[in-house]
């Protein structure tokens, strides 16, 4: 095979993997939008907060240590423990559930029946609050996230594929990051779990009922507030997974909250209300932007990925505003 063909395959595979990473962020948006019609602006910050909390708990960091030390003149920093990753993840999940309860009690409860734009604005406020709160709680330094996920190119794959190119060509084997492979498996597991949960459990059916029609769900005795807590908690869990995967690449730092920008074109393309749509949308964006950068990028100066994703999303908006898998909104006037 020609190296150029193999490089194209490599770019496509890496695009698919990158798309999965985008989908992980988009999933959190979809869950909340589907169940409550809220576009959660704070989803990126939730991923950052979850990752910061995970590192803090795992490394035994004392929350608000800077604040406590400044106020009381103490010099405390750590509890002196280093917890196993799984245990730390479970504890972090507990924090995210607590976070969901607080969001429902302090924000959503007071905004029932408000316009979606009001709820959206509330999530903007929540995002700013959490940015500052997370920094106060865990500090703003870059944290190394180590939960045992392998990273780096797969040597096995390189060895297996190095001979695929014609002899004498400068081909070094196919490159796929092991972290991306893990992220793909995790995303697959996540989607299967979420689908099973929503299809075959009582709570899942209640979630779908609320998503379909709030009033009807309320009339048959489904507690909207309980459902909101569950949805935000699940979304917090998805944010944690996204935070782990992205945090493993760049360290846990403020910029992690910007990954939400990567999810927007995915949502527009896949639809705001479809879990499979978030995955398919992510894959299309991932492959599309990588192939465009590989083929057209060098001709126009490169760095095309950011805007290409949005242009692709814009095209979909023109021809299919609800996205590939989103529900068509029909409103009586």
């Amino acid at each position, binding site marked *: 095979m020609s190296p150029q063909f193999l490089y194209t395959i*490599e770019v496509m595979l890496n695009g698919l993997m990158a798309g999965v990473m985008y989908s992980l962020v988009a999933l959190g948006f979809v869950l909340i939008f589907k169940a409550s019609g809220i576009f959660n602006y704070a989803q990126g910050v939730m991923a950052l907060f979850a990752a910061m909390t995970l590192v803090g708990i795992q490394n035994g960091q004392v929350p608000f240590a800077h604040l406590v030390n400044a106020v009381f003149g103490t010099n405390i920093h750590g509890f002196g423990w280093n917890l196993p990753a799984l245990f730390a993840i479970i504890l972090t999940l507990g924090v995210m559930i607590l976070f969901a309860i607080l969001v429902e009690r302090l924000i959503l409860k007071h905004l029932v029946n408000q316009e979606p734009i009001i709820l959206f604005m509330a999530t903007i406020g929540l995002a700013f609050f959490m940015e500052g709160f997370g920094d106060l709680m865990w500090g703003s330094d870059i944290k*190394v996230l180590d939960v045992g996920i392998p990273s780096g*190119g797969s040597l096995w794959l390189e060895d297996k594929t190095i001979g695929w190119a014609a002899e004498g060509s400068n081909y070094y084997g196919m*490159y796929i990051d092991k972290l991306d492979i893990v992220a793909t498996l995790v995303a697959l597991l996540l989607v299967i779990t979420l689908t099973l949960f929503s299809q075959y459990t009582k709570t899942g059916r209640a979630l779908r009922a609320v998503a379909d029609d709030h009033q009807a769900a309320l009339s048959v005795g489904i507690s909207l507030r309980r459902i909101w807590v569950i949805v935000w908690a699940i979304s917090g869990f998805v944010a944690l997974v996204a935070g782990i995967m992205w945090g493993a690449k*760049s360290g846990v730092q*403020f910029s992690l909250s910007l990954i939400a920008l990567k999810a927007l074109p995915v949502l527009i393309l896949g639809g705001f209300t479809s879990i499979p749509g978030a995955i398919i949308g992510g894959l299309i964006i991932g492959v599309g932007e990588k192939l465009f950068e590989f083929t057209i990028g060098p001709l126009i100066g490169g760095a095309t990925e950011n805007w290409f994703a949005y242009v692709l999303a814009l095209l979909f908006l023109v021809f299919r505003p609800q996205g590939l898998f989103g529900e068509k909104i029909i409103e009586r006037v």
Partner: protein
Amino acid sequence: MKKLKATLLAIAVGGAGVLMSAPATADLVFPSLSYRTGPYAVNGIPYADGYADYMTLVNERDGGVGGVKARILECETGYNTQKGVECYESTKGEGALVYHPLSTGITYQLIPKATADGIPIHSMGYGRTSAANGTVFSHIFNYPANYWNGASHAVNHILSENDGDIKGKKIALVYHNSAYGKEPIRTLEELSAKHGYDLTLIPVDHPGQEQKSQWLQIRRERPDYVVMWGWGVMNQVAIQEAANIRFPMENFIGVWWSGSENDVIPAGAKANGYKALTFHQVGTEYAVFEDLKKYVVDAGKAAGNGDQVGTVLYNRGLYAGFLTVEAVKKAQEIHGTADITSEMMRDGMEALEITSDIMASAGMSAFGPEFNVSCDNHGGPGLGAVQQWDANAGTWKLISEFEPSDMDVISALITEDSDAFAGENNIEARKCG
């Protein structure tokens, strides 16, 4: 009634007179345009701490500069250009002597404003490179080194590793796709024509969290060296991706804004051997750090909680403080007064001489290069060094002396760019000497 009117008038005129004639302040005022929040806070905090701590040290140890206390006016910019300009406008009336904008974008916006207000700007290692031409940029200084010096330092280092011959070598520039990131391109292109290396330009869009395409390209094209002009999360991801494709770290050289502990720590042991440029020393093996501990940190007067002392960016802030204080001393010496104005400060910066004796007396012996600033050269000689990361020890180490850049190439570029700026803005070049 007439008497009352006359009294009120006298009070009003007198009051206005007091307001107009009184000195702005009895302190030496240094606004610190810092960013302790936002995506770049992790870099902004140590720099701001270092700058503030040096001023506190001067106050506590020496009783100020020439007997006048230094006062830091910190204003949060969040690394946002608009907020930076607001900070400038809100602090300049306090008697500000010099601004360190700490952002290329903010520097560009402040160049005309500060020049009109007669307040000098010191953009140390950033900002508009051609501001080194003091005949055009009367109030802008960028000593001891600028981006074009940096590009030349990187090429010089590669030359030194290849016995002075890099003809046919492949060098890739991975850069932040912004005005900042594009700064070295022209210089690298000129140097490519001079030395015969092949230059590949690889832009990375802000913020730079996803760089798979760029590093797949590097893996395909196998450049001999990669030079990086990155900032923030772009640095951490680039170093991680370079490690993932097993690019040799000793052939990966970042500019000084891609060379702090924050950039290498997330990649762990895989970042070992990564190099970066610098124009000041690393570590805490200097007498000034003992004084800082005694007079600032242990006394509870540190700007932060003391955990940043000795990091690369803390040292850069400290060095900025040192250069500022030395310029104040020079201004006081020139004008024979301790209470200097911003115009006097500008004179001090223009006559600044950093010698080994001056560095030693500040407890910072050989902390940076020796250099002079002059009326026509606001950038100094452009000396720089290369530092390398030792992941096992968790420390940076200088692996070269402070060496010159290719001023034959750079001076011509500075003249060309500053002349164009002067033409666009109807600035008549000053006569120096």
